[in-house]
């Protein structure tokens, strides 16, 4: 019973972390059709900026988080204007630009801070004891913020005017232009939101696990799995995909050793995609 409760809580928290990390990536992929490979690098850089602001400059850590979100969000504006807009609809070249950004960001971290991993103090310390299970407050906060961000984003896309415009763009770009939607403005909003959410994820996860210049590569892999499994073009899909991936990653290691569990999880994902290539809730594209 205790094992089951422990597993259940782990499933929820892992899922929330995956969703938090993949949110911005999913938004750009579904709405603007951008395969944002530099998402992982932006996540990493945000962690480092927050660490620098709080540890070196001595700013309150929560304030540092807000500042990081602002800085990285405005970096998103720059990215959209100079790196994504010139290559709209050109898959290969936008991918190459993304790799260029990754190289620059990672190298900058290595040159300025160094390759060793750094630890950031947790946002909230302490452990919550609830009956048979105990959870660290930090994981609970991560879970709450991940869930809240997903909720806000889904609400934003379904209920606001820019959200409506994004959905129009993802369905029919030409049609959206003819309705007078300023597609450059809308994709700028999408990129800024994506970068800001990557920043939140980077700060929280950077405090939870240690900072390291290449931690974004793993995140990129997880985000890709979530988005493909959930279905391109569907934001609620990544919620289910996050739950599934969290469940696989939390339960399989109980029964198998780490890498065998990984093989089984990847095999399961490949089989699902063979029979449902558009993911759980996706629609066919191109």
């Amino acid at each position, binding site marked *: 019973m205790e094992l089951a409760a422990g597993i259940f809580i782990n499933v929820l928290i892992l899922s929330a972390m995956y969703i938090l990390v993949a949110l911005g990536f999913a938004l750009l992929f579904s709405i603007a059709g951008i395969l944002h*490979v530099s998402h992982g690098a932006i996540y990493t850089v945000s962690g480092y900026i927050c660490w620098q602001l709080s540890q070196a400059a001595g700013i309150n850590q929560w304030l540092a988080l807000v500042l990081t979100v602002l800085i990285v969000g405005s970096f998103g504006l720059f990215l959209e204007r100079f790196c994504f807009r*010139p*290559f709209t609809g050109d898959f*290969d*070249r936008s*991918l*190459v*630009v993304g*790799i*260029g950004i990754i*190289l*620059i960001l*990672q*190298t900058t971290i*290595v*040159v300025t801070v160094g390759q060793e991993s750094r630890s950031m103090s947790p946002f909230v310390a302490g452990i919550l004891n609830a009956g048979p299970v105990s959870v660290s407050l930090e994981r609970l906060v991560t879970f709450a913020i991940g869930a809240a961000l997903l909720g806000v984003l889904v609400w934003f896309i379904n209920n606001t005017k820019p959200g409506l415009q994004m959905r129009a763009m993802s369905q029919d770009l030409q049609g959206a232009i003819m309705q007078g939607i300023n597609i450059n403005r809308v994709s700028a909003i999408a990129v800024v939101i994506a970068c800001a959410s990557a920043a939140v994820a980077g700060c929280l996860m950077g405090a939870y696990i240690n900072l390291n210049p290449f931690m974004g*590569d793993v995140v990129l*892999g997880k985000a*890709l*799995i979530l988005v*493909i499994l959930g279905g*391109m073009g569907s934001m609620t899909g990544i919620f289910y995909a996050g739950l599934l991936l969290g469940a696989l990653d939390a339960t399989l290691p109980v029964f198998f*050793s780490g*890498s*065998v569990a*990984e*093989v089984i999880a*990847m*095999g399961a*994902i*490949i089989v699902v*995609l*063979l029979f449902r*290539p*558009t993911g759980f809730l996706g629609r066919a*594209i*191109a």
Partner: protein
Amino acid sequence: MAKPGFWAGLLIILLVLPLFIKSPYLIHIINMTFIYIILTVSFRTIMTSGQLPLAHAGFMGIGAYVSAIAAKWFGLTPWLSIPLGALVAMGVGILIGYPFARLRAVYYAMISLFFGMLILSAVKAFAKWTGGAAGLTAIPPLLGFSKVPYYYFFLGLTAVSLLVLYRLEISRPGVTWKAIAQSHLVAASVGINEARYRIIASAIGCLFAGIAGATYAHYNTVVGTTSFSFMATIMLLIYVVVGGVGSFIGPIVGVFLLMTVPELLRELREYVPYISAAIVLIVVFLMPKGVTGLVKSFLSWLAELWKSRRTSDAP
């Protein structure tokens, strides 16, 4: 590609090159360049059939690990284990080719990406045989420990591989692949068996990836998982795009610019990725068709200029 004299000259220069290069490190860089040329050109061969094989570095890994394990744990001579590794890579390529042929474009790219990740986690899962994340060491070398014999081996191997892949591209299968890539519906309507030709393309690509991986294992004598990861495959795609997707020599130019040049500038240490980033960004912003695309349009511009000069001088 039509000038035999040029290629014969290039071959002679490459044959005598080791007589003038005394640094073993430089020879090592050239050998690695040869391996990656085979890998990247075979990557592009699969791309011409309209498939984006994001598991390609993983197939290199299959070749490398199968060959290394056969030679190290079962005492097979590398001369037999290398073909074995390459054939296993091709076999796996054919086996997954059948189910994966159901999917096209982005969906194919994504499922092959996940297959590449599956290969890597399988390597980590069988750590007893593969050495896991720490890597497999003390693999029997193919030609001893001096670099120069390998130079001639890789030169020959690369020349033969390029010849085979180029002949394929300009012959019937190559044309068929391009037809499928442009429109699978039109290709099917003129009687092309789309799935069959796509499987043939990935079988050939995986065969050469396996060859590159197996020879790499017995040349380097140490293999680790990072060379076969998702990012490694993405780098192959970058080589192809920077060199120019539309041209057979594009990937070769890309490997040279992005692998060999940064290696030569090794003194800059941790600043080296800036050089790669600069090359990547310059090419992607200023040369929409890659380096070879730019050279081609420059040459045709020169030819135009020459022609107009001649006609205006004529009367």
